[in-house]
């Protein structure tokens, strides 16, 4: 037979939220109880200390009543990615040819696997935010370990450009053949878009 044991719980801990690109920003919702808070992360710089992509920027939270609070200099560190099962966006036309990733060795006459290698791209970036104070943002939840699941579904040109860059950067930093120079160039290109 089975029994059931309840544990006391403190302030609800929020583990992750789903966000989508909106131009350079990522937007989503924090759902706590019956309240829905609009969440915006606006990165203004990208870097790769310790071999990990880190986006730094501002977080804004808009309460159900309309009150908006913000916090600056929040870092979002890339933990891992999920590969896409659709093709990547085209390489932005304005980018220099030097940013084009090296093509893989020809595989001969054998079939390829869908969406792998150069056909691949990033579907989701999982980023960990630096600890946030939920109360300061007006959210009744523990946001000290908040992960944002950034689904790279692009519907505008700037989103497609960033999607291509984030995908190329992931391959250059963590792919089978890491390329530090190319990764640095991609970080530079991302910064130019974020600061534009």
């Amino acid at each position: 037979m089975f029994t059931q044991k309840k544990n006391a719980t403190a302030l609800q801990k929020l583990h992750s939220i789903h966000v989508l690109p909106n131009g350079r920003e990522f937007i989503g919702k924090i759902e706590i109880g019956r309240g829905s808070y609009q969440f915006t992360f606006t990165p203004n710089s990208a870097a790769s200390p310790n071999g990990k992509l880190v986006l730094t920027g501002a977080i804004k939270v808009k309460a159900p009543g309309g009150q908006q609070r913000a916090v600056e200099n929040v870092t979002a560190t890339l933990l891992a990615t999920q590969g896409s099962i659709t093709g990547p966006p085209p390489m932005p036309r304005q980018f220099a040819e030097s940013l084009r990733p090296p093509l893989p060795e020809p595989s001969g006459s054998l079939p390829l696997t869908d969406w792998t290698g150069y056909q691949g791209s990033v579907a989701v970036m999982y980023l960990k935010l630096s600890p946030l104070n939920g109360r300061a943002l007006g959210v009744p939840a523990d946001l000290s370990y908040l992960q944002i699941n950034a689904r790279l579904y692009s519907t505008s040109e700037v989103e497609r450009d960033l999607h291509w860059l984030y995908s190329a950067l992931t391959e250059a930093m963590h792919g089978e053949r890491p390329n530090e120079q190319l990764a640095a160039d991609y970080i530079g290109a991302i910064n130019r878009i974020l600061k534009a």
Partner: protein
Amino acid sequence: MAAKELAERGFEVLILEAGPRLEPTRDFAMNKFAYESMYRGFGPPGWKQREQWMQDTAGEFSRNFYINDTEHPYTTDPGKPFLWVRARVVGGKTLHWGRLSWRLSDLDFKAATHDGFDVDWPIDYKEIEPYYDKAEEWIGVSGNRDGLWWQPDGNFLPPMALTCGDQLLKKASAKMGISLIQPRVAMLTAVKPHHAKYGRAKCHYCGSCGEGCTVGAMFNSLSSTLPAAMATKRCTLRTNSIVRHINVDENTGKAKGVAVVDRVTRKELEFFGKVVIVAGSTLESTRLLLNSKSSKHPNGLGNSSGVLGHYLVDHFGGTGASGVLPMFAGRDTVNEDGKSSGVFVTRFRNLDKATKHPKFLRGYGFEGGSSIGSFPGVARRTPGFGSEFKRQVRRWYVAPVGLTTRAAMLSRFENYVEIDPGGVVDAWGIPVLRVHIQHSDNEREMGKDAAEMAAEILEKAGAEQISVSRQLTVPGRIIHELGTARMGNDPKKSVVNKFNQVWDAKNVFVTDGAAYVGSANQNPTLTILALTIRACEYLTEEMKRGNL
């Protein structure tokens, strides 16, 4: 199936389901047609890419049967994606599975003996045959007794008939010495008393199996095994219960229960039991075991061998051929889409010395057929527009034909899952999986051969406008993810024994696709059900002997 088997044997059973209960009258769309929706069955623009981008088979009417990817992360290596389709609802993936129900043979169970790659299963066909009989009898499988030694027969309900186009494919295959048979599908073409007892009815050929079968003609646990388990009055079903990890007794290392978070209230709960059955589908089960770390099981429960998570496989498809049968062009439209079973070309490579292929091991089959569907797929490759375009679509819409590969993937240690080392968690804070998987040249050679053979069969059947697909599907796409907690005779090289019992904790059983040793090329559900019945029988005996 485990709940039914154990409750019927007198055990008190608690089923913990991570998702909600579905209400057939509200959530099933069996009688809904695409034209009834303003989105024609495709859903609002962008919904899938925003919410269910990995739930490849989810449609506008079946999206409730699938998880929302926004809450259920997993990670992959760059350039090596994995498609993971999941269902967290009462009934799980049985609500929308393909229903193909094949037995494996000793060609599959003893594959390593045949070709020297990897290891054999710890069981042979004779051992599992009685449990295949029981599983088939319970779920109801329609099919023919075809007398093929590599594709064992069962006790079938009457088969679903082949269409005219299917018959042409059968003749063409026979000319090439290839066996094309009626698929064996878990759909009732006749109703036996134990089907009728729980309200299951004969298939009425509506063709909407994936949208939820409200009459229970298609086997799913919601209309079959669960009602039987609940009828014993010894089974409790708790929904919205996400199991974080298995709790173990620190003295014995045996399981003592599970830690659960309520999906909706997010309350943390614990449940206790004498035996824990892990059956959350292949990768969720392995994730649970890997997340069940303790001083007795520091690398996860069942992982003293270091094998847990390894030998991940999925069948692959993608390669194949499609075209049109000109003898049917312009014929009157007939209602052929309700059958939804098509044809199955059984394995014909590497059966014996005469069929040995020089470039790859194991084999593949084809699914496909020729039947008019409600959606005119031919329109997608018909050039032009306006009235001439419509005329061409109407002309060829009634003559489709196609074959697509269902092939074995070799079980390799380097294809594996682990708890994401970056620390990614799901919406409830539970660590997620990182999947490492890619095809080898064996799969690529097989895919190449399959594309050529599919085209040849179509050509011999008289097809025209043949289009050959030459890319393999991304791993996971066939939704037959298997392995990662493989069974074996050696505790140092396997996770469970031949009764699905975890070597390291004998009161834990893994009764889903995780226990698979090799993928073979046939759909896995019937084998999973048969192994589950066998495991429950063994569990009962072991409990009586006081060994658990």
